[in-house]
């Protein structure tokens, strides 16, 4: 626009406006008032520190007081914090009030310089680099250049190699769970075996595989794959093929509780709709259709565990899971 025609006259810069003096600049009385105000602010900070010290020593750590809106608050930590907040805040308020009222508020103009070095310096720099390179002779001695490149590149492998022992290789572990044919389902928590009759229609139970042997301790990494949800519906509610129907027992159906999307626990069961909902990303699974995904980002149904009862009437797994549980990974279907 500006170079379109010469006659166009632009609006001119009137320059920095004249400095306006503050009351505190011209009248010592106001300056004195400002000085006292700054001192009061600093003294409020002192009061804050005293409050902090008092609270630390004299308020019991288990005293609670009721404060509207915030409810019951631990008095010790509340007054400790309020003291600290006062102590800090008023130092800042005092310093800023001081700067604004009593220090000069006249704006100063400084000049900028161009960042670009001048041509002579630039040329000399290029010359220095070229000379340096010539002395090293990298261009003339390709053998040195190439072997150095190889050496540097290969030495970069060292950290990769040394970090190898960060963890074991996954092997087949991701595809396996503790469930085997005949493993009893036990309650979590409680580790009690479950009879079909323990579950009423509409009930849900969180279960884990029974641990046989001395050490009853469960590793979290086992729970992360073994957690199973039991749900009991009326058998006529199911909409399953014959094979999947044979994996249920008198309306009891079992799914991996680990979401097939990102591994959260699929913890919300809606009794009315018979939907399972993952609270992390809202993937929704239809229990009557073998946990088919009906909404949300999950791409696969929850793996179903085939259940039946043993001779004593306790619920057991018919077989291990027929697919890996939890989120997808590269070698999942290989």
């Amino acid at each position, binding site marked *: 626009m*500006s170079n379109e025609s010469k*006659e166009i*006259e*632009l*609006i001119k*810069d009137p320059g920095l*406006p004249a400095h306006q003096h503050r009351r505190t600049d011209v009248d010592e009385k106001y300056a004195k008032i400002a000085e006292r105000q700054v001192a009061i602010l600093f003294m409020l900070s002192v009061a804050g520190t005293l409050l902090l010290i008092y609270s630390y020593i004299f308020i019991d*750590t288990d005293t609670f007081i009721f*404060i509207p809106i915030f409810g019951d608050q631990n008095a*010790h*930590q509340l*007054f*400790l*914090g*309020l003291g600290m*907040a*006062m102590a*800090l*805040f008023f130092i*800042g308020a005092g*310093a*800023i009030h001081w*700067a604004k009222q009593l220090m000069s*508020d006249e704006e*100063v*103009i*400084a*000049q*900028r310089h*161009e*960042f670009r070095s001048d041509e002579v310096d630039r040329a000399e720099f290029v010359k220095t680099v070229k000379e340096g390179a010539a002395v090293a002779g990298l261009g003339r001695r390709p053998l040195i250049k190439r072997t150095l490149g190889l050496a540097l590149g290969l030495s970069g492998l060292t950290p990769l190699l040394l970090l190898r022992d960060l*963890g*074991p290789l*996954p092997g087949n572990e*991701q595809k396996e769970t503790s469930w085997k044919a005949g493993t009893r389902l036990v309650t*979590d928590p409680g580790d009690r075996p479950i009879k079909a009759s323990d579950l009423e229609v509409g009930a849900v139970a969180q279960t884990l595989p029974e641990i046989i042997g001395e050490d009853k301790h469960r590793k*979290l*990494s086992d*729970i*992360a794959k073994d957690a199973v949800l039991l749900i009991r519906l009326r058998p006529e509610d199911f909409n399953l093929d014959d094979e999947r129907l044979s994996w249920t027992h008198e309306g009891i159906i079992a799914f991996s*509780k680990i979401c097939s999307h*990102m*591994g*959260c*626990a699929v*913890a919300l069961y809606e009794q009315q709709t018979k939907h399972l909902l993952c*609270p*992390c*990303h*809202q993937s929704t699974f239809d229990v009557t259709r073998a946990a088919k*995904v009906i*909404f949300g*980002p*999950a*791409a696969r149904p929850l793996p179903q565990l085939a259940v039946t009862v043993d001779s004593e009437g306790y619920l057991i797994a018919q077989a291990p899971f027929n697919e890996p549980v939890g*989120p*997808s*990974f*590269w070698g999942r*279907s290989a």
Partner: protein
Amino acid sequence: MTARERIAGNVAGYVDDRVGAARYLKKSLKKVFPDHWSFLLGEIALYSFIILLVSGTFLTFWFDPSQREVIYDGEYAPLKGVEMSAAYASALDISFEVRGGLLMRQIHHWAALLFMVAIVVHLLRVYFTGAFRKPREFNWIIGIGLLTLGIVEGFLGYSLPDDLLSGTGIRIAEAIMQAIPVVGSYLSYFAFGGAFPGEAFIPRIYIVHVLILPGIFLALITVHLMLVWYQKHTQFPGPGRTEKNVVGYPLMPVYMAKAGGFFFIVFGVTAFLGAVASINPIWLYGPYTPGQVSAGSQPDWYMGWLDGLVRMAPPLESVIFGYTISWNILIPGLILPGIMFTLLALYPFIESWATGDKREHHLLDRPRNNPNRTAIGAMALTFTLVSLLNGGNDIIATTFDLSINQMMWFSRIGVLVLPPIAFIVTKRICLSLQRADRELVLHGRETGRLVRLPHGEFVEIHEPISPEKAWLLTSHEQLAPLELPEFDAAGVKRPQALKNKIRNRISRAATTAIPKATESERREIEHH
């Protein structure tokens, strides 16, 4: 000379004899900084970082970053006898047994949230005013680096206490790792020292959280500030302010007192929040176990938009040659954020390519005077906000009695449709504001005083605006669009014809503007 002055002089002389600092300091202490409230945003980020270092160091004295299982036997009765990791138990001890521990934990968390807010708002200020332009591109890129690391640092921070919520977050991070083609399972097994969750992860991210990332932060922040110092701060346009000067207050004493005072104010406000506002009450969540989750699990806000993208992703997964690729995780969790951060980092170069403007800029733009940039910013912001909204879709749905499915569909459609609408609307608003500026300069301010002329006509009196205001509204330069030749002198298409055509078109869009008012036009109107 008083005795005190003599001592001060002697100390200064002693130091200068050895390091020669006077030469440098006499200039530095007079360094001029322009004043504007929006320049405080970066300061808030810096100060909350310092608060994080101080409060974080306090927490390390008691925190035990170990996933070894212990039986809790502390002050908090509801969890007595529960099996948990030593990390969670020590975080409970900090909250209930260390005096001031809960306060420090809450200050640390509030400061982290403030740190990220300040970074993001500072970034928006720099973006919308064009402060990233030459010669400040390096500082822009460092800033994007700090933003990215801040997100990671924050995530690691709230993962450390090993409560049910943080464990759920780690589980999701593990699923993203696993979804990476070919190497995903290996990465996950190496990071966790075996199957999730294992016992290695918390100690490992602890050292990253308290040493490696803070070290990188310190280095980057130092360079960031040194560049601000060396290149001098940008300033808003106004009377007496040019590309060649800086108008403001000297470092010593005004700026030191103001900036130093502001640090205490930020610290004071964070301490106040830590005292009265409960944040991340880990004792309510319980220890992490993979078989449980609490409803309404939410990440901290700066991760929320990522979680929102993951939630709205369509359920796509393919099996190619027997290998599984989870698009539903890869696209929202890695590919989209990767593209967004790359575009953000490259924006200064993209804009200077589009406008052909390679000059230095020290005067800031008013956002309306660069409608295209402002509209692109509004578009990106809308995309991120819709994602963030979807990250809390469960909370919003339950609070406002909506169905979660409606919320999700709103976001799925909105995330595609709303950003272009934001672009168009913003660009129009900018151009309208330019028109209003032009009117104001040419016709003056509406006074609201109506006058009846002798022949019966009513007119409103307009008052001319001050020369300072008129200068502010017209001092910006308006770039002409590029006109790269498509044909050579003989009328034959050049080899770069298509490229030039595209660049001309983009440049036309980037330089759209309402011609600013000039003195000549003003004079012409007066003559009428």
